[in-house]
């Protein structure tokens, strides 16, 4: 019995270790190698023995893409969020000692945390982008391109996750409030685009957003604009593309959370004197939180490394790290640098991925 169980566990476990875990080890190894004009285009720097291996590690690729600067910004972001989460409740208690801690506080805490984090990041970025060109004329320092690509990916992923939440929540809410017999149909209408090819859905927007596209034709025809808007090949098109393609990922978990909710709770809150809005904030919003968290991670994490959307809709103006990795690998054939780019992206993503996994396990229980 015990043996059989271990055997059952061993099969998918081994599969995932071979095809998911070991490949990451190889990426890590290659990120420490030198580029070479050969096939495969790198020379391993790994040697026998642990200490020889450590001393043989080549950090050149990481230095080249400016890993230090990326981590500095990331650290500032995490620290300022952490600091503020600790500081906010204390300040709040000092100012208004007896007030109860409510949902408005959480919202205010989250918003101010984000604002403080953004200001700090903006400051350090401004400092670095000023320092980079100045220093570059004196010493051989990393290329600013990679650093800028990580930052702009982060910015695009954060903004589009927020926009997706803004558009997705009312849809999920509307679905959960619809009549019982309508809900399976509405659910299918949300799932259907998710099953339709990602590539086709992104492609559909090229025809809409281009200079002579349907949107411009419509706006010109109605007379709202005098000359066509240039939306395709700008970051705006990338935001639209991400929101559009990832919307089902946001709607489905929120709907799942709202659907499970007991309606009598909202009624009870209203009977006890809450307005519709405060009943929503005090009852519905906290109960849908696991869904919102799951949805945000499901959008944010893949969007950060997105390749197809920026390369089809963003044009050459939009730099995202997924695109940089792709070009480094396929066009420049610099596998070690591509691997280093991937390793850093993965390190940035580890915290959100672990949080996502925790949230999912909680939802399941």
């Amino acid at each position: 019995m015990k043996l059989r169980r271990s055997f059952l566990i061993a099969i998918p476990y081994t599969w995932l270790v071979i095809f998911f875990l070991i490949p990451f080890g190889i990426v890590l190894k290659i990120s420490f190698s030198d580029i070479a004009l050969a096939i495969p285009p790198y020379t391993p720097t790994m040697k026998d023995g642990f200490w020889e291996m450590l001393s043989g590690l080549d950090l050149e690729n990481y230095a080249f893409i400016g890993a230090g600067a990326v981590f500095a910004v990331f650290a500032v972001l995490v620290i300022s969020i952490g600091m503020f989460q600790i500081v906010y409740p204390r300040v709040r208690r000092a100012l208004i000692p007896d007030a109860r801690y409510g949902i408005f506080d959480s919202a205010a805490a989250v918003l101010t945390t984000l604002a403080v984090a953004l200001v700090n990041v903006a400051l350090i970025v401004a400092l670095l982008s000023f320092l980079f060109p100045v220093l570059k004329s004196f010493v051989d320092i990393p290329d600013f391109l990679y650093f800028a690509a990580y930052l702009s990916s982060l910015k695009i992923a954060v903004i589009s996750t927020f926009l997706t939440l803004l558009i997705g929540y009312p849809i999920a809410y509307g679905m959960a409030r619809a009549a019982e017999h309508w809900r399976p149909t509405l659910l299918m209408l949300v799932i259907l685009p998710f099953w339709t090819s990602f590539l086709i859905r992104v492609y559909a927007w090229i025809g809409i957003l281009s200079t002579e596209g349907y949107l411009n034709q419509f706006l010109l025809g109605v007379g709202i604009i005098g000359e066509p808007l240039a939306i395709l090949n700008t970051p705006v098109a990338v935001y639209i593309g991400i929101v559009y393609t990832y919307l089902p990922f946001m709607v489905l978990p929120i709907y799942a959370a709202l659907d499970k909710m007991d309606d009598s709770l909202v009624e009870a809150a209203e009977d006890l004197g809450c307005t519709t809005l405060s009943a929503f904030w005090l009852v519905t919003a906290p109960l849908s939180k696991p869904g919102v968290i799951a949805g945000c991670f499901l959008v944010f994490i893949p969007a950060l490394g997105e390749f197809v959307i920026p390369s089809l809709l963003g044009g050459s103006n939009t730099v995202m790290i997924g695109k940089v990795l792709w070009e480094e690998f396929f066009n420049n054939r610099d596998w070690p640098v591509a691997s280093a780019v991937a390793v850093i992206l993965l390190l940035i993503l580890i915290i959100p991925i672990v949080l996502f996994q925790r949230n999912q396990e909680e939802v399941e229980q």
Partner: protein
Amino acid sequence: MRRFSWFNATSLTFGFAFLYLPMLMLVIYSFNESRLVTVWAGFSTKWYGELMQNEAFLDAAWVTIKVAFWSSTLATILGTMAAYIMVRSGRFRGRGLFSGMIYAPLVMPEVITGLSLLLFFIAVDVNRGILTIILAHTTFAMCYVSVVVTSRLVSFDNSLEEAALDLGCTPFDAFRSVTLPIILPAVISGWLLAFTLSLDDFVIATFTSGPSSTTLPIKIFSAVRLGVTPEINALSTIMILLVTVGVILASLISRSLAIKAKADERKAEQQ
């Protein structure tokens, strides 16, 4: 009593319009006579005819279907096992790592998965082709299958399976004759999900495919980079149609299976 206000109605209307209008435009303009995709010049099905004569697209479509069939079948077997382990095995050494490896591929940016698999295939010296794409797709699709099957497994009563074991079934028999029929709708929708994920995938397929194994998304991407063409509109329409019919059929099948399974479950409980 749930209230359905004008606010809900508006958000649903705008939401679904946003989701469906772009695809609708694509379908409408695939029947356009003119090669200029944004100017309507009358109804025509000539682009569908041209598409059917495009050997390269047809070959790629065949490769894609083969890859999708094998990878979704493998992924369903592995994913169902993984779900069963996660729900039924309780604690075992390495459970945290296992659940991490199940959830991480769901959100992992495709460029990272693709790059790591390609470097892995080169390191172990496997020629890239249909086989490598199947292995890659199986790996990420099994995680989706496992999530779908897990959600069904947690909601059903473990005592039925225990009863079967008490009555002398072997664990495998108990799984086959009690658990499997109950989770079958989830297993089928997991298979379909894995199939469409494989059909859709462009990034991972590009990294893991060889020169002789071009899939349809790879072909579409290289065509799309050059701009909007009526042939791609026609191809997209066919794919949208297939997925729509497939999803509607699947939901009808799984709904009737779920109703039957529920009824069986209830009957078994009463006896």
